[in-house]
């Protein structure tokens, strides 16, 4: 079968002829269907700025990883910016998130300091983790970031526990648990959705379905057609949204977060997306289709989708958008300079912070 004719054909698909586009569009909500009443200019600016910051952060991470200046592994979030930006726009520093191995985007959108993040992935002492965590472990608890997480699915429990704490403290705070399509097949996903539901926890599970868990397609690995429909097993709402459409994500996430804040319990949101790059940098990505519907979906740029939306709706002008883009480039370049100038961690620090005193 030619690649452009490739069909999604897991044995469990209700219709074995489902095409990639049909898979993307299955029950999906987009901004044409959603009404955004409180999408203010201020909110639009901050969300767009986050998307630009994420994109520029990732392009620089890619560049300096390729140059051998960033050690280890990096898993880039480019292409998925609308999800972190649209969801975190509803959160304050006191609301926690848990992130994934592909975590730079969530950390930027949740207010992680660009300098501290960049220094961290360069392995320098001014990094958020003093250079001892790296790309997969960026965290800033004061900003409500319970950490990127190198264990796929590792965030479910942390998020559920943080939500249990919020419920016990009756503090009106919510937790957002970001996770990928691969993580939805981990046992912890099921255990935590079940617990969140029986205890009616203030938590929103935000799935980022980029269709590939490493090199394995979601349509192969998941018995259910969508991840959102798994919510039914745990008696919570499950919504599928176009994850490249910031306005749709913002809207759907806002509703779910509001429900959680009001004590109405958890929601599962599946954001359909795609990653611009490989699982990690260095991945040859031979599993991705080079033409056809999948390629067309890959080429939808969430930043452009939002730019067009804001211009069409008179929220921002092209000039304003360009200014944000240029400022973001400068800010991220400054973060790279900060990282490069930051010293390596002292050798003494090898032994520090294993235990709290």
């Amino acid at each position, binding site marked *: 079968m030619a690649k452009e004719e490739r069909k999604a054909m897991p044995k469990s698909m209700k219709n074995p002829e489902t095409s990639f586009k049909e898979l993307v569009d299955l029950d999906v909500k987009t901004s044409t269907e959603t009404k955004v009443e409180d999408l203010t200019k201020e909110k639009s600016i901050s969300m767009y700025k986050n998307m630009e910051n994420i994109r520029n952060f990732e392009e620089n991470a890619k560049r300096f990883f390729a140059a051998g200046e960033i050690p280890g592994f990096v898993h880039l979030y480019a292409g998925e910016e609308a999800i972190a930006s649209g969801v975190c726009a509803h959160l304050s520093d006191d609301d926690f998130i848990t992130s994934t191995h592909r975590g730079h985007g969530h950390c930027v959108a949740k207010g992680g300091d660009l300098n501290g993040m960049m220094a961290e992935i360069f392995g320098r002492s001014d990094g958020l983790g003093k250079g001892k965590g790296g790309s997969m472990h960026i*965290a800033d608890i004061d900003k409500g970031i*319970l950490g990127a*997480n190198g264990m796929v699915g590792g965030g479910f429990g*942390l998020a559920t526990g943080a939500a*249990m704490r919020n419920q016990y403290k009756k503090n009106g705070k919510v937790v957002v648990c970001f996770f990928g399509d691969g993580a939805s097949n981990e046992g912890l996903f099921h255990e935590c959705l*079940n617990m969140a539901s029986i205890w009616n926890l203030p938590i929103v599970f935000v799935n980022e379905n980029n269709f590939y868990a490493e090199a394995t397609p979601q349509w192969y690995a998941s018995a259910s057609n969508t991840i959102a429909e798994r919510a039914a097993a745990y008696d919570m709402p499950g919504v599928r949204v176009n994850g490249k459409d910031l306005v749709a994500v913002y809207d759907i996430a806002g509703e779910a977060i509001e429900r959680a804040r009001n004590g109405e319990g958890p929601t599962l949101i599946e954001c359909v997306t795609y990653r611009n790059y490989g699982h990690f940098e260095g991945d040859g990505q031979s599993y991705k289709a080079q033409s056809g519907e999948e390629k067309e979906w890959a080429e939808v740029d969430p930043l452009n989708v939002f730019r067009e939306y804001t211009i069409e709706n008179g929220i921002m002008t092209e000039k304003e958008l360009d200014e944000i883009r240029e400022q973001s480039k400068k800010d991220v370049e400054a973060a790279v300079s900060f990282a490069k100038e930051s010293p390596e961690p002292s050798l003494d620090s090898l032994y520090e912070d294993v235990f709290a005193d």
Partner: protein
Amino acid sequence: MSKDKLFMNAINEGLDQAMEKDENVILLGEDIAGGADVPHLEEANEDSWGGVMGITSGLMPKYGRERVVDTPLSEMGYMSSAVGMAATGLRPVPELMFNDFIGFAFDAILGQASKMRYMFGGKAKIPMTVRTMHGAGVNAAAQHSGSYYGMFASIPGVKVVVPATPYDAKGLLLSAIEEDNLVVYSEDKTLYSTKGEVPDDYYTIPIGEADVKRKGEHLTIVTIGKMLFVGLEVAERLEKDNVSVEVIDLRTVAPWDKDTVIESVKKTGRLIVIDEANPHNNTATDIASVISDRAFDFLDGPIKCICAPNTPVPFAPNLEQAYIPDADKVLKEADDIIFDLKS
């Protein structure tokens, strides 16, 4: 005031006092109250099991289901959740019913709790005490009888305590709960019905300090958990042959008290370690390694590690008894460093 109490009641009293002192202390686990959502129990504000061994009995009626949380059978789910609770300011005490169930839940300890503070550059605290139960001796067979405290102890970022007496059980538990770090508190199921003096008041025993349970001059025996009583029996029996044995109850397996053991070995020149764990890469072998490195010149013979065999725990009562190290086994297997001491 101080009176004789059961080991299990000492733990219950410790939990009660920790919960009374700090409203952030939350217990969670499977059937630690039992009977959640059962109308006749709810009406009467009663728990059912109070833990599979009854250790947490009475705490739910006193503190409510918000603080004594019965979880679904989801070890990975609630153990990982406990890490999230701890990282966000609570002081959870999850109960992993049997330490053998850790396979389901290990990421909570291995992947998350033990590493978060380090990975986050010192910006996280994980004040979490995992209560769990180890040990053979009740014919519970291979999946409910293992002794895995040494496995936890091999992970940086984890403290591990194994009490042997009711007094130590309460004091170490209160220290563990006060710790701003992950502590695995491992209870030997055969000790629950043992008795000993326990003060009524709140008190702590420092983590990392061994306790010399019997003073001696000729031979040092280091024990973990219920192996204390094997060590004490060996000491009694050797006393008849005029061999004076020092018995050190390790109490904390990680970080274990090197100073106390080294000081004792410097005095006696001979060391036996009794550990119910399987024999390879366990606490006994770690102690042997450290002592042979740091006190070699004081040793008058090889260090003897008396452990369980390298097998799962068998079911048949006669096989299980043969599995657990006892005084006869110690005296036989360590005879080459004992026989010349006898007179």
